[in-house]
């Protein structure tokens, strides 16, 4: 799956076992198990998937198949402040693309990347259902509405007062 192997600590494997147990180790609960695991670890590395597969008695390929099918699941760690730009239709016609380009430029990174210092990751998402506020940007749980390219610098600085 991924080339870098990570060692799971005892408390981490215990945690996964607890999650699987809480859903009765049922194959049909795989998506719920993955949600909980991602909440705990921030992402779903191959090692976590293998452990879940073992516990639910299904193949690792099946778990991997599900993880890669759904966009909510990630196999790479997100940044400390994950930035998501909504590219739903309403945001698109209100200029989400120019906002996205501004973020790319300011942060010098592409969509899907996490900055090497682990501070920011940049992603696009489809419609958060706040179309009245278009274009919308989310940083972690915080939502910014009616964002213009000129606002981008200010948003980044909120999370990085010392500057880039």
């Amino acid at each position, binding site marked *: 799956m991924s080339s870098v192997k990570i060692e799971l600590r005892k408390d981490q494997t215990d945690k996964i076992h607890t999650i699987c147990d809480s859903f009765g180790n049922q194959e049909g609960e795989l998506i719920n198990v993955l949600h909980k695991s991602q909440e705990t670890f921030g992402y779903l590395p191959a090692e976590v998937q293998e452990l879940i597969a073992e516990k639910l008695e299904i193949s690792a390929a099946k778990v991997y198949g599900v993880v890669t099918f*759904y966009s909510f699941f990630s196999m790479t760690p997100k940044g400390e402040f994950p930035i998501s730009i909504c590219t739903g*239709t*309403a945001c698109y016609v*209100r200029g989400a693309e120019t906002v996205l380009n501004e973020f790319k430029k300011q942060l010098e990174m592409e969509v899907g990347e996490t900055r090497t210092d682990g501070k920011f990751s940049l992603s696009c998402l489809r419609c958060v259902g*706040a*179309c009245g506020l278009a274009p919308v940007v989310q940083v972690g749980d915080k939502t910014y509405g009616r964002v213009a390219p000129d606002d981008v610098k200010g948003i980044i600085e909120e999370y990085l007062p010392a500057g880039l």
Partner: protein
Amino acid sequence: MPEATLLANPVKKQIRIALRNCGVINPETIDEYIGKDGYFALGKVLTGLTPAEAIKVIKDSGIRGRGGAGFPTGLKWEFASKNNSDQKYVVCNADEGDPGAFMDRSILEGDPHSVLEAMALCGYCIGANTGYIYIRAEYPLAIERLKIAISQAREYGFLGNSVFGTGFDFDIHLKYGAGAFVCGEETSLIHSMEGLRGEPTLKPPFPAESGYLGKPTNVNNVETYANIPVIFLKGAAWFSGIGTEKSKGTKVFALAGKVNNVGLIEVPMGVTLREVIYEIGGGIRDGKAFKAVQTGGPSGGCLTEKDLDIPIDYENLIACGSMMGSGGMIVMDEDDCMVSIAKFFLDFSVEESCGKCSPCRIGNKRLYELLERICTGKGEMKDIDRLRNLSEVIKDTSLCGLGQSSPNPVLSTLDNFYHEYISHVEDKKCTAGVCRDLMEYFIVEDNCVGCTACARACPVGAITGERKEIHLINLEICIKCGACMEKCKFDAVILK
């Protein structure tokens, strides 16, 4: 996340049925829902009607599925009720994935009990005692409010064993989506509920015969359910008195894009797009000219000026080359390039195609590439024919609703904005000024002060001009990188 925005002032022409309690009651207090006649319909039906009689009420009301396809809800329930099984399921499709639509989210956040009550009613009608709400993980507030609502309903005896002391058991659980648009398709949704990849399967068998875990399952959308309790309270005749001949009741639309008033509106079926955009939406922003309105999300099409006076209902929208879909309504003005809009939707469909069938997986990708070529000035006239042919093939041969409808944005823009395709291909011009590759950089003589900043920034030496004299861009050399525009402090470099 802020709560979904409702229009502050309910404007005339609106009738609120599905949204009747949104913004009116505290959704975290069951007593307030009861105060608005909540759970009265459930009590009335459980104690006074047989399941067959109750299904007849829904059939007579004429309500059709609000999730997209518009299948008659009463018929769906009847099918599920007639299939005998030891176990049946009621499922609520809350995987609202259409970009630009957020009515389901508003209902779940603003009036979660109405959905729970309707699901219990459905359970009684079809003979099911378990319900699942399949909800997007992207809607944390809706999830929270549903959890509260379910526990309150259990406490009051509206869910659980022997509801209203009638011996009818019904309980509801949540299942979470994980970000896959195709899961709005009911067979995909059911596979996802089972913990699998959300890939669709051929129908028949329909979920009413073989759905969740192979048992008869009734799947309806949030907005459909939100209408159900009112229909039982006010009667089928009242409901079917609203709307058009074949489309009864109201529809919630998420009005967004380039209109002055954005937000959710609920209007009776049969109002016109003109009324929606100009009277409720307050017209186009910044005094610009209306160009198109896109309905039905990535599966729908773009409607134009000529369609503005057609009464909105399921049939009419399809006849115009679009569809009702879940009710997203995105208004576009003269600054929107319709070829780019088609490309935008195709990009979505390519991304969201599950990959199971090749027409959708490969066909949409090829459509996207053709549009990309046209938008970057590499298109030829044959590409326009290719677009149309390929679109027809994808529509005819895809496995599920996603692929069968994904070419709609292309076909409807080809029909209504053929001249824009032509100008992209033949003249290599984007009249709306969106496709950057088709635009060129110019220096506005009046603004240029001859500071030489642009000429120094140009990586290919395309800009000439002496200090304090007007500069000029040589378009033959220009690589359209935009460095000059960025460096100019006098707004003298423009793109057109």
